[in-house]
């Protein structure tokens, strides 16, 4: 008697919570292989640093973080990371806005789709392959220097990569599609009626563009710059190849400390600083993105 009642309860429980089975595989995967590893990384960063030892020492300390702050090598890397990422977001904004505007205002479906496919292809193509092209273009024996020397405009190659300029060009190439995609939605959302109203009140097209369209695309501009900042500061491959390990940024130090020096705790601490810097800009980005979503009819 009791048995059937138990069974009934079990069945009722099963039927109520059965949908949870749908999410269980993904949830278990994320708990074991995402939450636990990321939390462990944070724990390790606050552990006592011992070279070559990964296991937990259990002595909590800020030593690694103080070292990042005190050693100019690491502190400068953080400054370089932040300034390159900030420059990259400003430049992609200026370069990306016109194309985003053009795509948003293209009514012809075929042309619009074609332009979107171009941007998406550029975004989804493996960054290493895109960097191959950039390096052949910008290297000392590359196409630009080759052409300039061929036409006797310069005598010696000019340094277009293996320096900060090269890293910056690479970051702009890397993040431009993200900026364009962030801008298209908001520009498309601007009601043509607002622009027409300003025109009928006597504004010239130039005035309408600078005083109406640009201010109304501000949320997209803010979201795009923050997103580009976050992905630029996280990039390992661009500074590694375009900077030739001469421009040291945080992701390169993370790899070097772990893979080459076995300094697990210190490498994790740099990774934590990197993560938090990019997280702050992403949180602001999401706040802005929610405001955009809420503001749109």
């Amino acid at each position, binding site marked *: 008697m009791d048995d059937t009642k138990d069974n009934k309860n079990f069945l009722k429980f099963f039927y109520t919570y059965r949908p949870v089975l749908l999410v269980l595989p*993904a949830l278990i995967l994320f708990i074991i292989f995402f939450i636990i590893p990321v939390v462990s990384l944070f724990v390790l960063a606050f552990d006592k640093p011992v070279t070559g030892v990964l296991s937990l020492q259990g002595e909590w300390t800020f030593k690694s973080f103080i070292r990042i702050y005190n050693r100019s090598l690491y502190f400068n890397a953080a400054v370089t990371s932040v300034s390159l990422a900030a420059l990259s977001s400003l430049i992609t904004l200026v370069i990306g806005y016109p194309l985003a505007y053009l795509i948003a205002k293209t009514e012809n479906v075929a042309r619009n789709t074609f332009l979107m496919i171009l941007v998406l*292809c550029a975004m989804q193509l493996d960054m290493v392959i895109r960097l191959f*092209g950039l390096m*052949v273009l910008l290297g000392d024996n590359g196409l630009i220097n080759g052409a300039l020397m061929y036409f006797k405009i310069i005598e010696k190659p000019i340094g277009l990569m293996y320096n900060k300029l090269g890293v910056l060009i690479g970051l702009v190439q890397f993040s*431009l*599609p993200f900026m364009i*995609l962030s801008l298209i939605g908001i520009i498309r959302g601007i009601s043509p009626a607002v622009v027409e109203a300003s025109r009928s009140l006597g504004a010239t097209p130039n005035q309408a563009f600078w005083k109406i369209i640009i201010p109304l695309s501000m949320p997209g501009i803010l979201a795009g710059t923050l997103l580009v900042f976050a992905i630029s500061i*996280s990039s390992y491959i661009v500074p590694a190849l375009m900077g030739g390990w001469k421009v040291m940024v945080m992701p390169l130090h993370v790899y070097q400390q772990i893979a080459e020096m076995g300094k697990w705790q210190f490498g994790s601490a740099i990774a934590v600083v990197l993560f938090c810097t990019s997280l702050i800009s992403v949180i602001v980005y999401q706040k802005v993105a929610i405001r955009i979503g809420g503001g749109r009819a």
Partner: protein
Amino acid sequence: MSKKKLKEVNELGFLIKFGSGIALSILLIPVFIVVLTGLNSGDHLTFPPKGLSLRWIFAFFKSEEFLSAFLFSFGLALIVMALSTIFGTLAAIFITRFNFPGVQLLRALFLSPLILPGIVLGLALYIFYVSTDIGLARSYPGMVIAHMLVTMPYVIGTVSASLFNFDLNLEQAARSLGASPLTAFRKVTLPNISNGVMAGSVFAFIVSFGQFDVSLFMATPNNTPLPIALYWSLRYTFEPTAAAAGIFAIALVVISMLITSKLVNLQKFSGVKFD
């Protein structure tokens, strides 16, 4: 309309077109250079170019290094695509359909690998694999798991978007006519969201195929994805054979995006997230 205004329209239009041209050049010129390098007849691409040939394409087919990396990445991307599509679609159905407490938190959790720097996620997983010593460090399953984490957000994003757009009344109509919940879902809902599911899996494939950051700590000489193989060769020299491998990767991306454009409306696609 006065002449001055007309001129202004033209100037503004010119500025937009000129700027767009610059942006498109920055996006596409590196890609064209890779194609040119892979098809040029010299030992490397120089100015002026020497001429066209297929020698590097043939060299790629004979190259142990790049061909095996290409095939490795292709196989890995197929497995990752299959697993991510199954896990991600089921999770997306749960997130959009059922109002359990904390569902929004769950959604944020599943999308968060997109915002975590790839190298940080790769490092966190590598440390986890090494310290738990469960045989996943520098192993194939370990790499599959890492790729699943970064591709599932794309599947969950696209599938939930198409579930949001689906009219629930259709499924309820089928239910009221006597279909079981599972049958109604299979015969009515699934065909309607199948485009979203397929678009999500195409994204999962291409993101895994081009994945560099999380693979960096996972790769071994036996398990080398194409981006890692290209990276190691690029550190020392510009091999046209690598560019020939790049041509095939470019073709794969173009085909994937053409398929995506047929499956989902790219005009409604805005922002990096798919909702």
